[in-house]
């Protein structure tokens, strides 16, 4: 897995964007529940927006929603699918965000952090989320975890593992995707080491979720 870098993950999604988008139509209930309980903000952020499945959810609470992804083809799919006047598409890297400090009031960072190729990148990315969240800003972070049924892993281990999970296109060709599957303890450790303030962490449907704030 040493040769996997952030560009590889982006290129993977460029290749599968069209088919991937067709299979990712609905928002996650965990995201809807989180956002529904939040106060209105000026700017929302969907970090790793993919085809924009959570943009409309965020738009219920945010005047403008920055939809950021590394893959241009996924951003193109978001533009085709989502007709929301507040949506602002940005191509960028989750570990080096092109967004100003304190510019975001409400963020969802769902099923993306686990694609970053090293622990260093993943921790940088959490610090970047802390930087862009304003003083009262709040966010929801999710990753795939070792607690998921499909992994034969010890969910009580200190760390998770790197793996490759194939995406099969309609023509039968297979595109590998890099994942770091988090042990819940590791997810908590990375959050604790970051500039984020953690309000709660839980495991649901094989994913780890954390509600976070910027450190005051």
């Amino acid at each position, binding site marked *: 897995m040493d040769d996997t870098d*952030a*560009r590889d993950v*982006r290129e993977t999604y460029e290749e599968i964007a069209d088919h991937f988008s067709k299979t990712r139509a609905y928002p996650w209930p965990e995201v809807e529940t989180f956002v529904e309980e939040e106060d209105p903000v000026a*700017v929302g952020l969907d970090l790793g927006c993919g085809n924009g499945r959570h943009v409309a959810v965020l738009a219920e609470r945010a005047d*403008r929603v*920055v939809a950021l992804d*590394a893959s*241009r083809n996924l*951003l*193109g799919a978001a*533009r085709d699918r989502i007709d929301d006047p507040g949506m*602002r*598409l*940005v*191509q*960028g*890297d989750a570990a*080096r*965000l*092109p*967004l*100003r*400090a304190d*510019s*975001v009031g409400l963020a969802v960072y769902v099923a993306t952090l686990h694609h970053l190729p090293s622990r260093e990148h993943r921790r940088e990315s959490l610090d970047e989320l802390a930087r862009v969240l304003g003083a009262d800003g709040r966010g929801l972070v999710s990753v795939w975890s070792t607690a998921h049924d499909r992994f034969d892993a010890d969910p009580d281990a200190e760390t998770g593992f790197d793996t490759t999970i194939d995406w099969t296109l309609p023509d039968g060709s297979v595109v590998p995707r890099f994942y770091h599957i988090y042990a819940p303890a590791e997810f908590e450790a990375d959050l604790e080491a970051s500039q984020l303030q953690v309000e709660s962490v839980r495991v649901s449907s094989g994913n780890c979720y954390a509600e976070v704030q910027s450190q005051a």
Partner: protein
Amino acid sequence: MNEDLLDIICCPLDKSELELDVRDRDDGEIVSGTLTCTECGEAYPIEDGIPNLLPPDMREETTA
């Protein structure tokens, strides 16, 4: 790209402000142009209405 993004986005490398140079505009939206960092001078393209603010080492090596 809507011009109101300028008060949110910044250079991904040094987080400085970006200067907008519009090449093509359609019905208020910026279709193509360049965002240039006012500090390090790195230029980021706006293509097909979407600003590409990936750090230079993550960009396409060749245009597809």
